[in-house]
Each structure stands twice: as C-alpha cells, then as structure tokens.
C-alpha cells in the first residue's frame, strides 16, 4: 500500500501554486481521499502541490453578512467554529458527521468538494445554503454557485490550474431552521443518503425552503419540487409528509450493494421528513 513515486511542492503563495497546477500538477489538500486513492494506485499523479502552507486558504470569517470559509479549513475547524455554530449551524452539524475524528482533523472542505464524492456530506448542506465558491486561476478570480460547480460523480467544473480559494454562505436570517441527517454506510460512514434542509419562516409561513440531497444520485442535487411544495405552507407535519414524498420523483437513483435504487429513494423520503421536522417544527 505504497503510492507510486511523485514530486512534491509545498508553495507558500497562491500564485506559485497556480503556476505549478497549470503545468499539470495535482493539488493536495488534507489528503484524506487522495492519499488512499494513491495507495491503491487508483491515482498516480506525477507531481503533488500541497496547499497547506498557503495562509490565505485557511480560516473562517464573516464580512457583511457573508461567511467566508477558506478551502483548507478542516472539517474539525468547521465543526468547532463558534462563529459558524451561531451564524450557520448547518455547516458545523454536517462537518461533525464526516468520517471520524482523525479524518476531520486532516480533511478540508475545499479538498472534499473538489474531490466530489457523490456520497460525501458537504454537498447537501452547501446546496441548501445556496453556497458560492471562489476560484483562483492564472487569469484571476471567479465566483460560481456551488450548484454550478457540480458536474458529475467525482467531477467538478474546475479548469486545469484552478484552485478553490474559499466557500461562501450567508449568515442565517432570523427564524431559520436547519438540519442535516444521513443514513451512513456502516463501515465507511459515507452517506447512503444525506439530506440537508434550510427553511425560513415569517409570520408562521415558510417563506423560503432549500433542500440538498447527497448520496441518492450520481450528482448531489437540490430537490426543487420539495422546496416548492413547502413554500407558502405553515410547515405542519402534513405539509412535510406531502412535500417529502416528492424527493425521489424523476431521480435516477444510485444502486449498489449497500442500497438498491428503490431503497435509497425510500431512505431519502424518511430522512427528509426527519430533517424537515427538525428544521420546521
């Protein structure tokens, strides 16, 4: 279980990292997905660029109602951030369910979303939060919605030479309810299905609902039919049951030895009901 040989650089500036990545090197974040793949020789990059020594890629801050989370911020830092726990509790709740404590100590949010494992936890939360992602490349910076970054299983819309700088999510407005729940695969902890909800109520009526679903399909997605069904209701148990039943409609669900497509859809509905009840009732 030893990786193939490779060259290694640990630049301290973003410019230097982008130069190296533009010449075909592969980015190394926390390594908690990449190193296992390299040990199995499923990936054999010739040159790794360790992003951990670049200061501007780390840390969590708030600016004008927007939270900025550096790409190299670890799951543990997100899980334990007092700022996020009060301003955006969905992210710490989600980060705290990833893998185990050792993995959360090393693994990073930027690495996780760039790897784009369809059973990873963050996508559900980031979709429910309408998160955006700032990306740096040789031509400067660009910002895309997290939803647009997702292309397919293990594939995101990053060009060669580009690197994720930070992830942005809004501070929760008053009367926001959020929840992430998942059916974990027993051995790995990855989500067979994971559902994140962010709902805002005003005058007792659901004024905005966002539902992100991971694990169910090749690409994590926003369950827009569920969101629409909830909007304008009072978010009662009956409203929740009716809306959650729509989550699997028209979805080409994953099927593997852990769960068939039909069972995954069933789990998605059950877990979505739980998440909605926690967020709304």
């Amino acid at each position, binding site marked *: *279980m*030893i990786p193939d040989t*490779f060259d290694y650089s*640990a630049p301290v500036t973003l410019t230097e990292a982008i130069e190296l990545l533009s010449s075909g090197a592969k980015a190394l974040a926390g390594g*908690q997905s990449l*190193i296992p793949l390299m040990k199995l020789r499923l990936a054999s990059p010739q040159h790794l660029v360790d992003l951990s020594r670049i200061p501007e890629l780390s840390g969590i801050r708030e600016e004008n109602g927007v939270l900025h989370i550096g790409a190299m911020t670890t799951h543990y830092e997100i899980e334990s951030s007092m700022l996020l726990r009060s301003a955006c509790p969905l992210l710490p709740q989600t980060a705290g369910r990833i893998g185990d404590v*050792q993995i959360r*100590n*090393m693994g990073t949010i930027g690495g996780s979303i760039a790897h784009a494992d369809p059973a990873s936890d963050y996508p559900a939360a980031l979709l429910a939060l309408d998160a955006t992602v700032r990306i740096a490349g040789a031509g400067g910076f660009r910002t895309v919605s997290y939803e647009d970054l997702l292309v397919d299983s293990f594939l995101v819309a990053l060009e060669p030479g580009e690197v994720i700088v930070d992830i942005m999510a809004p501070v929760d407005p008053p009367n926001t309810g959020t929840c992430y729940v998942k059916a974990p695969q027993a051995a*790995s902890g990855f989500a067979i299905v994971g559902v994140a909800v962010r709902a805002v109520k005003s005058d007792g009526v659901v004024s905005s609902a966002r539902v992100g679903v991971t694990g169910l399909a090749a690409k994590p997605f926003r369950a827009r039919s569920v969101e629409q069904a909830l909007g304008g209701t009072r978010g009662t148990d009956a409203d929740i049951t009716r809306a959650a039943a729509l989550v699997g409609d028209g979805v080409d669900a994953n099927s593997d030895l852990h769960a068939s497509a039909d069972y995954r859809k069933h789990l998605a509905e059950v877990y979505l009901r739980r998440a909605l009840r926690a967020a709304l009732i």
Partner: protein
Amino acid sequence: MKKTITLFINGQRYSHEVEPRLLLVHYLREVVGLTGAHIGCETSTCGACTVLLDGKAVKACTVLAVQADGRFVTTIEGIAANGSLDAVQEAFWNEHALQCGFCTPGMILTAKQLLAREPNPTEEQIRHGLEGNLCRCTGYQHIVNAVQAAASRSGD
C-alpha cells in the same frame, strides 16, 4: 526527488531526507525507529496508526511524512513522563481496557485528544470520539470505562 524534512517527535528534533511518497507511519516506524504506531488496515479505517500531529489525532497511514515537515508529532512512546505512566495509560491498565494491545496506542492517543478537547465527556461523546479506532478484542466497554476513569482522575 527526495525532500529534507524536520519533525519534532516526542520533544526531539529529527531531520531526514525522504521520498515524498513515504507515509508518516512508515517514517516513524522504519526511519525513526518508533514502532508504537501500528500498521493495521492501511486504509484509514482502523486507527491503529493514530499519532498526534500538532496535538490533533491523525491516521499516520494517510499522511505523507512531507506533510508533517516542521510540525510536532506525539507517539505512544512520548506520553509517559519521566518513566511514570500518563493518566490515560494508567486508566487503560486499571480498567483492563486491552487484551491483545494492537489498537491500544491509537486508542490512547485518540482518547488523550478527546480529553484535551472535552475534559468531562459523556459516554456518548467518548464513543463518538473513538469512532475512528477499532478494537477487535474488548468490545469497547472497558475502553469507555478507562476514558471515563482518566477523565475523573484528571479532574481530582
């Protein structure tokens, strides 16, 4: 191309030229000669290779030695001060928290970090905190007892 790395392991400075692909656990065991971090599953699952990197528990089979350059590493060999056992080691002994002992170094280091973050953990917090360490002998109950005993001892 080899890289020169410098690590501070159990309070001592080590400098070596290593291949970038060398895993931290192999570096510790084969280059430095500290064999307390065990190689179990090699797939980032079992936690037998757990060491503290800058005080945080990590799986040394899933960290490159070059990633640890310039950082502080604590292995099981480094926690007994002046020949007397650390509180968690002592509690594992008293509570019979091991049989074969293979998982023990990783368990103890993860438990130490758990207690550093949460000095009075509930049973649920202990079980959640040790999720990344597998034991195939004891069934965990004695391990949980030991962590609780260590917590109450350090609270004395």
